[in-house]
C-alpha cells in the first residue's frame, strides 16, 4: 500500500492511495494518511489504484472524513473502482464518503461550503 500527497490550488489536498486497503494496507498508511487529512479542510482521496477495501480500510476513510468534517471541511473520494464502490454501497457509507468520477468534480465538491 502506498500513499502520496499533493497540494492543489485553493488549499485542496489530493491524497493518492495505491494498493489493497486491507488490514495490512490500512496499517501501512494509517499514520501518513491521518497526518495528511487531519490538518486540512479540503481533501480529495484518489482511490483509482485501490481495487480492494475491507472494513478496516473503510474505518480509516470514515475516521478521516469525520475529522475533516469536525474542522468544517469536506473529504471526498474520486476515481472509485467497481469493487470499492460496491463495498461503499453495501456498507451504507456512500453518502458519508461521496465519490466523484473525476478529480475536477471532486475538487469542485470540496470547495463547496460543508
Amino acid at each position: 500500500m502506498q500513499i502520496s500527497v499533493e497540494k492543489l490550488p485553493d488549499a485542496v489536498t489530493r491524497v493518492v492511495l495505491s494498493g489493497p486497503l486491507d488490514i495490512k494496507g490500512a496499517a501501512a498508511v494509517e499514520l501518513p494518511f491521518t497526518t495528511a487529512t487531519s490538518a486540512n479542510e479540503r481533501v480529495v482521496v484518489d482511490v483509482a489504484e485501490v481495487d480492494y477495501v475491507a472494513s478496516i480500510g473503510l474505518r480509516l476513510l470514515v475516521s478521516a472524513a469525520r475529522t475533516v468534517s469536525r474542522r468544517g471541511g469536506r473529504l471526498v473520494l474520486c476515481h472509485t473502482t467497481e469493487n470499492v464502490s460496491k463495498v461503499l454501497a453495501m456498507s451504507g457509507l456512500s453518502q458519508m464518503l461521496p465519490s466523484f468520477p473525476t478529480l475536477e468534480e471532486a475538487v469542485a465538491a470540496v470547495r463547496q461550503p460543508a
Partner: protein
Amino acid sequence: MPAGEAGANRIELPAQPDSISRLWDWLAGRLGPIEPGPELSHAIRLCAEEIATNIVMHAYPGRADGTFAVGLEADPAADGAVRLSFEDWGIPFDPTAHAPAAAAGTVAEAEIGGLGIPLVRGFVQQMAYERHGAANRLTLVFARGAS
C-alpha cells in the same frame, strides 16, 4: 504438506494478523480451477477476510495461542455454490445474531465500528452459525452469479 494445511480443502491458521493474507493466498489458489469470476472472487475474499479479522481480533482475548480453521467446498458440477466454513475455539460469538449497523446521518455522528459483519451479510447468500461444544462454526454460502 505445508505448515497450516489440514487437508486439501481445509487450512488451520494461528489467530494472528498475518494469517488474514495467508488465508486469501490459500483460497485464491483453490478457487482458480473453479473460475469464480471477479465478482464472486471479490465477495469471497472480502467475507473471508472480515470473518478472519473478527476471529483474530476478538476470539481469544488475552491469549496468543488461538487458532482457526477454514474449509472450502465448491462443486461447479452441482449447484455451483461455494461454501466457506470457519471454526474457532474462542469465546462464543454468533455473527448471525449481530445487529445490523444503523446508518448514521452525517460524517460527524458516524459510528465507525461494527462494519465487517453487515458487509458479510450483504455479500453472502446464506450465513449459518452453530456453537458445537467449545467451537464456533460459521458457514457462508455464495451462489454463483448472485453476488
